[in-house]
Protein backbone atom coordinates (compact mmCIF):
# COMPACT_ATOMS: atom_id res chain seq x y z
CA UNK A 1 0.00 0.00 0.00
CA UNK A 2 3.08 2.26 -0.11
CA UNK A 3 2.73 2.91 -3.85
CA UNK A 4 -0.82 4.32 -3.82
CA UNK A 5 -0.06 6.27 -0.61
CA UNK A 6 2.96 8.11 -2.03
CA UNK A 7 1.71 8.05 -5.63
CA UNK A 8 -1.41 9.98 -4.68
CA UNK A 9 0.47 12.51 -2.55
CA UNK A 10 3.14 13.10 -5.19
CA UNK A 11 0.41 13.62 -7.78
CA UNK A 12 -1.37 16.19 -5.61
CA UNK A 13 1.96 17.85 -4.79
CA UNK A 14 2.77 18.22 -8.49
CA UNK A 15 -0.67 19.70 -9.05
CA UNK A 16 -0.02 22.28 -6.30
CA UNK A 17 3.36 23.16 -7.84
CA UNK A 18 1.70 23.68 -11.23
CA UNK A 19 -1.00 25.88 -9.66
CA UNK A 20 1.65 27.87 -7.79
CA UNK A 21 3.67 28.41 -10.97
CA UNK A 22 0.67 29.57 -12.97
CA UNK A 23 -0.77 31.83 -10.27
CA UNK A 24 2.55 33.37 -9.34
CA UNK A 25 3.39 33.76 -13.01
CA UNK A 26 0.15 35.67 -13.58
CA UNK A 27 0.87 37.78 -10.50
CA UNK A 28 4.29 38.69 -11.92
CA UNK A 29 2.77 39.37 -15.34
CA UNK A 30 0.27 41.83 -13.89
CA UNK A 31 3.19 43.56 -12.18
CA UNK A 32 5.01 43.59 -15.54
CA UNK A 33 7.94 41.64 -14.10
CA UNK A 34 7.34 38.22 -15.65
CA UNK A 35 10.14 38.42 -18.25
CA UNK A 36 12.68 39.95 -15.85
CA UNK A 37 12.32 37.70 -12.78
CA UNK A 38 15.13 35.29 -13.58
CA UNK A 39 14.67 32.92 -10.62
CA UNK A 40 11.01 32.44 -11.52
CA UNK A 41 11.81 31.76 -15.18
CA UNK A 42 14.34 29.13 -14.09
CA UNK A 43 11.77 27.68 -11.73
CA UNK A 44 9.21 27.50 -14.56
CA UNK A 45 11.77 25.78 -16.77
CA UNK A 46 12.66 23.27 -14.05
CA UNK A 47 8.95 22.59 -13.43
CA UNK A 48 8.52 21.14 -16.93
CA UNK A 49 8.41 17.48 -15.77
CA UNK A 50 5.66 18.09 -13.17
CA UNK A 51 2.86 17.27 -15.62
CA UNK A 52 4.47 13.98 -16.62
CA UNK A 53 5.17 13.01 -13.01
CA UNK A 54 1.60 13.85 -11.98
CA UNK A 55 0.14 11.73 -14.79
CA UNK A 56 2.38 8.76 -14.00
CA UNK A 57 1.94 8.79 -10.24
CA UNK A 58 -1.81 9.22 -10.65
CA UNK A 59 -1.78 6.23 -12.98
CA UNK A 60 0.22 4.18 -10.44
CA UNK A 61 -2.27 5.14 -7.72
CA UNK A 62 -5.19 3.84 -9.78
CA UNK A 63 -3.55 0.71 -11.17
CA UNK A 64 -1.73 -0.48 -8.05
CA UNK A 65 -4.44 0.64 -5.66
CA UNK A 66 -7.11 -1.38 -7.48
CA UNK A 67 -5.26 -4.71 -7.26
CA UNK A 68 -6.12 -7.58 -7.14
CA UNK A 69 -9.08 -6.33 -9.19
CA UNK A 70 -8.99 -5.16 -12.79
CA UNK A 71 -12.66 -4.11 -12.60
CA UNK A 72 -13.17 -3.32 -8.93
CA UNK A 73 -15.35 -5.92 -7.23
CA UNK A 74 -16.26 -7.64 -10.52
CA UNK A 75 -13.24 -9.08 -12.31
CA UNK A 76 -9.97 -10.30 -10.82
CA UNK A 77 -6.76 -9.46 -12.69
CA UNK A 78 -5.79 -13.12 -12.79
CA UNK A 79 -9.13 -13.99 -14.45
CA UNK A 80 -8.72 -11.19 -17.02
CA UNK A 81 -5.46 -12.50 -18.53
CA UNK A 82 -5.67 -13.68 -22.15
CA UNK A 83 -5.40 -17.48 -21.90
CA UNK A 84 -3.37 -17.92 -25.08
CA UNK A 85 -0.74 -15.43 -23.93
CA UNK A 86 2.53 -16.92 -22.59
CA UNK A 87 4.71 -14.97 -20.17
CA UNK A 88 7.51 -14.92 -22.76
CA UNK A 89 5.23 -13.11 -25.24
CA UNK A 90 4.41 -10.49 -22.64
CA UNK A 91 8.09 -10.01 -21.76
CA UNK A 92 9.09 -9.59 -25.41
CA UNK A 93 6.31 -7.08 -26.09
CA UNK A 94 7.01 -5.09 -22.91
CA UNK A 95 10.73 -4.94 -23.73
CA UNK A 96 9.80 -3.82 -27.25
CA UNK A 97 7.59 -1.01 -25.95
CA UNK A 98 10.30 0.16 -23.54
CA UNK A 99 12.89 0.20 -26.31
CA UNK A 100 10.68 1.98 -28.86
CA UNK A 101 9.47 4.60 -26.36
CA UNK A 102 12.98 5.17 -24.97
CA UNK A 103 14.26 5.74 -28.53
CA UNK A 104 11.71 8.24 -29.74
CA UNK A 105 11.20 10.05 -26.46
CA UNK A 106 14.95 10.66 -26.04
CA UNK A 107 15.20 12.00 -29.58
CA UNK A 108 12.06 14.07 -29.05
CA UNK A 109 13.53 15.61 -25.89
CA UNK A 110 16.81 16.23 -27.74
CA UNK A 111 15.05 18.06 -30.59
CA UNK A 112 13.01 20.12 -28.12
CA UNK A 113 16.24 20.95 -26.27
CA UNK A 114 17.83 22.03 -29.57
CA UNK A 115 14.83 24.30 -30.21
CA UNK A 116 15.14 25.85 -26.76
CA UNK A 117 18.89 26.39 -27.11
CA UNK A 118 18.46 28.14 -30.44
CA UNK A 119 15.94 30.39 -28.74
CA UNK A 120 13.25 32.45 -30.42
CA UNK A 121 14.42 34.39 -33.46
CA UNK A 122 13.61 38.09 -33.57
CA UNK A 123 11.79 38.01 -36.88
CA UNK A 124 9.20 35.56 -38.14
CA UNK A 125 10.16 34.28 -41.56
CA UNK A 126 8.39 32.00 -44.00
CA UNK A 127 9.29 28.43 -43.16
CA UNK A 128 10.07 26.22 -46.10
CA UNK A 129 7.90 23.13 -46.45
CA UNK A 130 5.94 23.83 -43.29
CA UNK A 131 2.27 22.89 -43.12
CA UNK A 132 -0.29 23.06 -40.37
CA UNK A 133 0.23 19.38 -39.59
CA UNK A 134 3.84 19.94 -38.59
CA UNK A 135 3.61 22.25 -35.60
CA UNK A 136 7.26 21.67 -34.70
CA UNK A 137 8.29 23.14 -38.02
CA UNK A 138 6.96 26.48 -36.75
CA UNK A 139 8.25 26.17 -33.22
CA UNK A 140 11.74 27.40 -34.08
CA UNK A 141 10.48 30.75 -35.29
CA UNK A 142 7.58 31.48 -32.96
CA UNK A 143 8.08 34.70 -30.98
CA UNK A 144 6.49 33.35 -27.85
CA UNK A 145 4.31 30.40 -27.09
CA UNK A 146 2.00 32.55 -24.95
CA UNK A 147 1.55 35.24 -27.58
CA UNK A 148 3.65 37.70 -25.60
CA UNK A 149 6.27 39.80 -27.35
CA UNK A 150 9.99 39.69 -26.72
CA UNK A 151 11.50 42.70 -25.02
CA UNK A 152 14.24 44.13 -27.11
CA UNK A 153 15.33 46.84 -24.68
CA UNK A 154 16.02 46.83 -20.95
Amino acid at each position, binding site marked *: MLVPFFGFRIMVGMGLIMLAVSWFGNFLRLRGRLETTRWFLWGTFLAFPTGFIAILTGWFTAEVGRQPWVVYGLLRTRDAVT*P*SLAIGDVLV*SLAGYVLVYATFVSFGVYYIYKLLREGPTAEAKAIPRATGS*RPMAFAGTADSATGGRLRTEG
Partner: protein
Amino acid sequence: MEPSNLALFWAGVLACSILLYVFLDGFDLGVGVLFGTTRNEAHRVRMMDTIAPFWDGNETWLVVIGAGLFAAFPDVYAVFLGAFYFPVLLLLFGLIFRGIAFEFRFRSERMRRVWDWGFFLGSTVVAFVQGAAVGAMMRGIPVADGQYAGGPFGWLHPFAILTGVGLVLGYALLGAGWIVLKSEGELHDWAHRRIRWLAASLFAVLFLAFTVTFDYSVLARSNFYARPWALIFPAIGVLALVGILVGAHRQRDALPFAMTGLFFVAAFLSLGAMFWPYMIPYSITVASAAAPDESLQFLFYGAVLVLPVIAAYTIGVYWVFRGKVGMADG
Protein backbone atom coordinates in the same frame (compact mmCIF):
# COMPACT_ATOMS: atom_id res chain seq x y z
CA MET B 1 -29.56 -16.58 -33.20
CA GLU B 2 -30.49 -13.39 -35.03
CA PRO B 3 -28.55 -10.22 -34.24
CA SER B 4 -30.53 -7.32 -32.73
CA ASN B 5 -31.01 -4.12 -34.70
CA LEU B 6 -28.49 -2.36 -32.48
CA ALA B 7 -25.92 -5.10 -33.11
CA LEU B 8 -26.55 -4.71 -36.85
CA PHE B 9 -26.13 -0.95 -36.54
CA TRP B 10 -22.78 -1.41 -34.85
CA ALA B 11 -21.66 -4.06 -37.35
CA GLY B 12 -22.55 -1.54 -40.08
CA VAL B 13 -20.60 1.25 -38.37
CA LEU B 14 -17.57 -1.02 -38.08
CA ALA B 15 -17.84 -2.21 -41.68
CA CYS B 16 -18.00 1.39 -42.96
CA SER B 17 -15.12 2.41 -40.67
CA ILE B 18 -12.93 -0.47 -41.87
CA LEU B 19 -13.61 0.35 -45.52
CA LEU B 20 -12.94 4.07 -44.93
CA TYR B 21 -9.79 3.29 -42.97
CA VAL B 22 -8.41 0.97 -45.66
CA PHE B 23 -9.10 3.52 -48.36
CA LEU B 24 -7.86 6.61 -46.49
CA ASP B 25 -4.93 5.33 -44.45
CA GLY B 26 -4.23 3.01 -47.40
CA PHE B 27 -3.13 5.83 -49.67
CA ASP B 28 -0.94 7.51 -47.08
CA LEU B 29 0.65 4.22 -46.00
CA GLY B 30 1.18 3.52 -49.71
CA VAL B 31 2.96 6.85 -50.13
CA GLY B 32 5.19 5.74 -47.23
CA VAL B 33 5.95 2.48 -49.06
CA LEU B 34 6.78 4.34 -52.29
CA PHE B 35 8.88 6.84 -50.29
CA GLY B 36 11.43 4.08 -49.72
CA THR B 37 11.79 3.37 -53.44
CA THR B 38 13.39 6.71 -54.34
CA ARG B 39 16.48 8.51 -53.07
CA ASN B 40 15.48 11.80 -54.69
CA GLU B 41 15.16 14.25 -51.77
CA ALA B 42 12.89 16.65 -53.70
CA HIS B 43 10.53 13.77 -54.48
CA ARG B 44 10.58 12.60 -50.88
CA VAL B 45 9.70 16.04 -49.51
CA ARG B 46 6.86 16.49 -51.99
CA MET B 47 5.55 12.98 -51.32
CA MET B 48 5.30 13.78 -47.62
CA ASP B 49 3.64 17.11 -48.47
CA THR B 50 0.87 15.30 -50.37
CA ILE B 51 -0.19 13.40 -47.22
CA ALA B 52 0.96 15.70 -44.39
CA PRO B 53 -2.45 17.33 -43.74
CA PHE B 54 -4.37 14.04 -43.89
CA TRP B 55 -2.45 11.07 -42.51
CA ASP B 56 -3.23 11.41 -38.79
CA GLY B 57 -6.87 12.17 -39.48
CA ASN B 58 -7.03 9.02 -41.59
CA GLU B 59 -5.83 6.96 -38.63
CA THR B 60 -8.83 8.20 -36.63
CA TRP B 61 -10.80 5.41 -38.29
CA LEU B 62 -8.44 2.81 -36.84
CA VAL B 63 -9.24 4.21 -33.40
CA VAL B 64 -12.97 4.07 -34.21
CA ILE B 65 -12.58 0.41 -35.25
CA GLY B 66 -10.61 -0.54 -32.13
CA ALA B 67 -12.87 1.32 -29.72
CA GLY B 68 -16.00 0.10 -31.51
CA LEU B 69 -14.91 -3.52 -31.29
CA PHE B 70 -13.93 -3.13 -27.63
CA ALA B 71 -17.26 -1.59 -26.71
CA ALA B 72 -19.77 -3.25 -29.03
CA PHE B 73 -18.21 -6.65 -29.75
CA PRO B 74 -15.94 -7.44 -26.78
CA ASP B 75 -15.63 -11.15 -27.65
CA VAL B 76 -14.28 -10.30 -31.11
CA TYR B 77 -11.86 -7.80 -29.58
CA ALA B 78 -10.57 -10.41 -27.10
CA VAL B 79 -10.10 -13.15 -29.71
CA PHE B 80 -8.62 -10.83 -32.34
CA LEU B 81 -5.98 -9.34 -30.05
CA GLY B 82 -5.10 -12.79 -28.72
CA ALA B 83 -4.75 -14.23 -32.22
CA PHE B 84 -2.80 -11.26 -33.57
CA TYR B 85 -0.79 -10.24 -30.50
CA PHE B 86 2.54 -9.76 -32.31
CA PRO B 87 1.09 -8.40 -35.57
CA VAL B 88 -0.80 -5.73 -33.57
CA LEU B 89 2.42 -4.96 -31.66
CA LEU B 90 4.25 -4.52 -34.99
CA LEU B 91 1.34 -2.40 -36.25
CA LEU B 92 1.76 -0.02 -33.31
CA PHE B 93 5.56 0.15 -33.69
CA GLY B 94 5.13 0.82 -37.40
CA LEU B 95 2.58 3.60 -36.77
CA ILE B 96 4.86 5.16 -34.14
CA PHE B 97 7.94 5.25 -36.38
CA ARG B 98 6.11 6.52 -39.43
CA GLY B 99 4.30 9.14 -37.32
CA ILE B 100 7.43 10.63 -35.73
CA ALA B 101 9.18 10.74 -39.13
CA PHE B 102 6.91 13.64 -40.17
CA GLU B 103 8.38 15.84 -37.42
CA PHE B 104 11.82 14.38 -36.85
CA ARG B 105 13.14 14.28 -40.40
CA PHE B 106 12.76 18.07 -40.71
CA ARG B 107 14.59 18.59 -37.41
CA SER B 108 17.54 16.34 -38.07
CA GLU B 109 20.49 16.13 -40.41
CA ARG B 110 22.66 13.16 -39.54
CA MET B 111 19.71 11.13 -38.23
CA ARG B 112 17.46 11.91 -41.19
CA ARG B 113 18.31 8.62 -42.87
CA VAL B 114 17.16 6.73 -39.78
CA TRP B 115 13.78 8.51 -39.69
CA ASP B 116 13.40 7.98 -43.44
CA TRP B 117 13.95 4.26 -42.97
CA GLY B 118 11.47 4.35 -40.10
CA PHE B 119 8.90 6.04 -42.34
CA PHE B 120 9.34 3.49 -45.14
CA LEU B 121 9.64 0.36 -42.97
CA GLY B 122 6.93 1.53 -40.56
CA SER B 123 4.45 2.06 -43.43
CA THR B 124 5.38 -1.27 -45.02
CA VAL B 125 5.08 -3.24 -41.78
CA VAL B 126 1.68 -1.68 -41.00
CA ALA B 127 0.39 -2.63 -44.46
CA PHE B 128 1.87 -6.12 -44.26
CA VAL B 129 0.40 -7.11 -40.87
CA GLN B 130 -3.03 -5.83 -41.89
CA GLY B 131 -2.93 -7.93 -45.05
CA ALA B 132 -1.58 -10.95 -43.18
CA ALA B 133 -4.40 -10.64 -40.63
CA VAL B 134 -6.99 -10.68 -43.44
CA GLY B 135 -5.35 -13.78 -44.92
CA ALA B 136 -5.27 -15.54 -41.55
CA MET B 137 -8.95 -14.66 -41.01
CA MET B 138 -9.85 -16.20 -44.36
CA ARG B 139 -8.17 -19.42 -43.26
CA GLY B 140 -10.19 -19.34 -40.02
CA ILE B 141 -9.20 -18.55 -36.42
CA PRO B 142 -9.20 -21.46 -33.90
CA VAL B 143 -11.52 -20.58 -31.02
CA ALA B 144 -12.51 -22.57 -27.92
CA ASP B 145 -14.88 -21.32 -25.20
CA GLY B 146 -14.97 -17.87 -26.74
CA GLN B 147 -11.17 -17.53 -26.50
CA TYR B 148 -8.38 -17.74 -29.05
CA ALA B 149 -7.09 -21.33 -28.98
CA GLY B 150 -3.94 -21.13 -31.12
CA GLY B 151 -0.31 -20.12 -30.67
CA PRO B 152 1.23 -16.62 -31.00
CA PHE B 153 2.32 -17.37 -34.59
CA GLY B 154 -0.79 -19.25 -35.66
CA TRP B 155 -1.44 -16.48 -38.22
CA LEU B 156 1.88 -17.14 -39.94
CA HIS B 157 1.21 -19.16 -43.09
CA PRO B 158 2.34 -18.78 -46.72
CA PHE B 159 -1.16 -17.63 -47.68
CA ALA B 160 -1.18 -14.93 -44.99
CA ILE B 161 2.32 -13.80 -46.00
CA LEU B 162 1.16 -13.44 -49.62
CA THR B 163 -1.97 -11.50 -48.63
CA GLY B 164 0.32 -9.30 -46.50
CA VAL B 165 2.58 -8.61 -49.48
CA GLY B 166 -0.55 -8.11 -51.58
CA LEU B 167 -1.83 -5.37 -49.25
CA VAL B 168 1.58 -3.64 -49.28
CA LEU B 169 1.32 -3.55 -53.09
CA GLY B 170 -2.36 -2.57 -52.97
CA TYR B 171 -1.66 0.36 -50.63
CA ALA B 172 1.35 1.36 -52.76
CA LEU B 173 -1.02 1.40 -55.74
CA LEU B 174 -3.43 3.67 -53.88
CA GLY B 175 -0.45 5.82 -52.86
CA ALA B 176 0.80 6.09 -56.44
CA GLY B 177 -2.70 7.10 -57.58
CA TRP B 178 -2.82 9.71 -54.82
CA ILE B 179 0.58 11.17 -55.75
CA VAL B 180 -0.57 11.39 -59.39
CA LEU B 181 -3.68 13.27 -58.23
CA LYS B 182 -1.82 15.64 -55.92
CA SER B 183 1.41 16.43 -57.76
CA GLU B 184 2.73 17.86 -61.01
CA GLY B 185 5.85 17.54 -63.11
CA GLU B 186 8.55 14.98 -62.46
CA LEU B 187 7.04 13.38 -59.38
CA HIS B 188 3.66 13.04 -61.14
CA ASP B 189 5.29 11.19 -64.04
CA TRP B 190 7.45 9.12 -61.68
CA ALA B 191 4.37 7.87 -59.82
CA HIS B 192 2.42 7.34 -63.04
CA ARG B 193 5.10 5.03 -64.42
CA ARG B 194 4.84 2.86 -61.32
CA ILE B 195 1.09 2.26 -61.47
CA ARG B 196 1.06 -0.47 -64.13
CA TRP B 197 3.90 -2.40 -62.48
CA LEU B 198 2.24 -2.22 -59.10
CA ALA B 199 -1.08 -3.37 -60.55
CA ALA B 200 0.60 -6.25 -62.40
CA SER B 201 2.53 -7.40 -59.31
CA LEU B 202 -0.60 -7.14 -57.15
CA PHE B 203 -2.41 -9.38 -59.61
CA ALA B 204 0.53 -11.83 -59.69
CA VAL B 205 0.75 -12.04 -55.88
CA LEU B 206 -3.00 -12.58 -55.45
CA PHE B 207 -2.98 -15.16 -58.26
CA LEU B 208 -0.14 -17.03 -56.53
CA ALA B 209 -1.90 -16.76 -53.17
CA PHE B 210 -5.14 -18.25 -54.44
CA THR B 211 -3.65 -20.93 -56.71
CA VAL B 212 -0.74 -22.28 -54.67
CA THR B 213 -1.23 -21.50 -50.99
CA PHE B 214 -4.98 -21.28 -50.37
CA ASP B 215 -6.64 -24.27 -48.78
CA TYR B 216 -10.01 -24.39 -50.50
CA SER B 217 -11.47 -26.78 -47.94
CA VAL B 218 -12.05 -23.78 -45.61
CA LEU B 219 -14.64 -22.53 -48.08
CA ALA B 220 -16.94 -25.31 -46.86
CA ARG B 221 -16.88 -23.67 -43.40
CA SER B 222 -17.62 -20.25 -44.86
CA ASN B 223 -20.87 -19.16 -46.48
CA PHE B 224 -19.21 -18.94 -49.85
CA TYR B 225 -21.22 -21.75 -51.48
CA ALA B 226 -24.51 -20.41 -50.18
CA ARG B 227 -23.98 -17.12 -52.02
CA PRO B 228 -23.00 -17.82 -55.64
CA TRP B 229 -24.18 -14.31 -56.63
CA ALA B 230 -21.29 -12.96 -54.54
CA LEU B 231 -18.87 -14.10 -57.27
CA ILE B 232 -19.78 -10.79 -58.90
CA PHE B 233 -17.51 -9.02 -56.37
CA PRO B 234 -14.22 -10.77 -57.28
CA ALA B 235 -15.20 -10.27 -60.93
CA ILE B 236 -15.60 -6.52 -60.31
CA GLY B 237 -12.19 -6.63 -58.61
CA VAL B 238 -10.54 -8.09 -61.70
CA LEU B 239 -12.32 -5.52 -63.91
CA ALA B 240 -11.07 -2.75 -61.60
CA LEU B 241 -7.49 -4.00 -62.01
CA VAL B 242 -7.97 -3.85 -65.78
CA GLY B 243 -9.36 -0.32 -65.32
CA ILE B 244 -6.20 0.67 -63.42
CA LEU B 245 -4.07 -0.57 -66.33
CA VAL B 246 -6.25 1.30 -68.84
CA GLY B 247 -5.94 4.47 -66.76
CA ALA B 248 -2.17 4.07 -66.57
CA HIS B 249 -1.91 3.41 -70.30
CA ARG B 250 -4.02 6.45 -71.25
CA GLN B 251 -2.12 8.71 -68.82
CA ARG B 252 -5.28 9.61 -66.91
CA ASP B 253 -4.88 11.26 -63.50
CA ALA B 254 -8.02 10.25 -61.63
CA LEU B 255 -8.84 6.88 -63.18
CA PRO B 256 -6.08 4.74 -61.53
CA PHE B 257 -6.90 6.08 -58.07
CA ALA B 258 -10.65 5.64 -58.54
CA MET B 259 -10.23 2.12 -59.94
CA THR B 260 -7.92 1.12 -57.07
CA GLY B 261 -10.62 2.36 -54.71
CA LEU B 262 -13.18 0.24 -56.58
CA PHE B 263 -10.81 -2.74 -56.32
CA PHE B 264 -10.68 -2.34 -52.53
CA VAL B 265 -14.47 -2.05 -52.31
CA ALA B 266 -14.83 -5.23 -54.40
CA ALA B 267 -12.31 -7.10 -52.23
CA PHE B 268 -14.07 -5.91 -49.09
CA LEU B 269 -17.50 -7.02 -50.34
CA SER B 270 -16.06 -10.40 -51.42
CA LEU B 271 -14.76 -10.92 -47.88
CA GLY B 272 -18.07 -9.74 -46.45
CA ALA B 273 -20.03 -12.24 -48.54
CA MET B 274 -17.64 -14.99 -47.50
CA PHE B 275 -17.65 -14.18 -43.76
CA TRP B 276 -21.11 -12.85 -42.93
CA PRO B 277 -22.48 -13.36 -40.28
CA TYR B 278 -19.11 -14.32 -38.77
CA MET B 279 -16.92 -11.62 -37.28
CA ILE B 280 -14.20 -14.10 -36.34
CA PRO B 281 -14.32 -16.72 -39.10
CA TYR B 282 -15.70 -19.27 -38.66
CA SER B 283 -16.82 -19.35 -35.05
CA ILE B 284 -17.98 -16.00 -33.60
CA THR B 285 -21.00 -14.30 -35.19
CA VAL B 286 -22.28 -10.74 -34.98
CA ALA B 287 -25.13 -11.91 -32.73
CA SER B 288 -22.98 -14.00 -30.37
CA ALA B 289 -20.27 -11.34 -29.98
CA ALA B 290 -22.52 -8.32 -29.47
CA ALA B 291 -22.57 -6.60 -26.08
CA PRO B 292 -25.98 -6.47 -24.34
CA ASP B 293 -28.49 -4.16 -26.05
CA GLU B 294 -28.44 -1.80 -23.02
CA SER B 295 -24.73 -1.15 -23.63
CA LEU B 296 -25.18 -0.87 -27.39
CA GLN B 297 -27.98 1.64 -26.91
CA PHE B 298 -25.83 3.82 -24.65
CA LEU B 299 -23.04 3.67 -27.23
CA PHE B 300 -25.51 4.38 -30.04
CA TYR B 301 -26.11 7.92 -28.76
CA GLY B 302 -22.37 8.52 -28.59
CA ALA B 303 -21.93 7.30 -32.15
CA VAL B 304 -24.72 9.40 -33.69
CA LEU B 305 -23.21 12.48 -31.99
CA VAL B 306 -19.52 11.87 -32.67
CA LEU B 307 -19.33 10.10 -36.04
CA PRO B 308 -20.97 12.94 -38.04
CA VAL B 309 -18.54 15.39 -36.40
CA ILE B 310 -15.56 13.25 -37.47
CA ALA B 311 -17.00 12.92 -40.97
CA ALA B 312 -17.58 16.70 -41.18
CA TYR B 313 -14.08 17.76 -40.16
CA THR B 314 -12.55 15.04 -42.35
CA ILE B 315 -14.42 16.40 -45.37
CA GLY B 316 -13.42 19.90 -44.28
CA VAL B 317 -9.71 19.05 -44.21
CA TYR B 318 -9.85 17.44 -47.66
CA TRP B 319 -11.69 20.49 -48.98
CA VAL B 320 -9.21 22.99 -47.53
CA PHE B 321 -6.21 21.07 -48.90
CA ARG B 322 -7.79 20.21 -52.27
CA GLY B 323 -5.85 20.45 -55.52
CA LYS B 324 -2.20 19.92 -56.32
CA VAL B 325 0.53 20.45 -53.76
CA GLY B 326 2.39 23.72 -54.39
CA MET B 327 5.67 23.70 -56.26
CA ALA B 328 7.30 26.30 -53.96
CA ASP B 329 10.88 25.32 -53.11
CA GLY B 330 9.83 21.68 -53.51
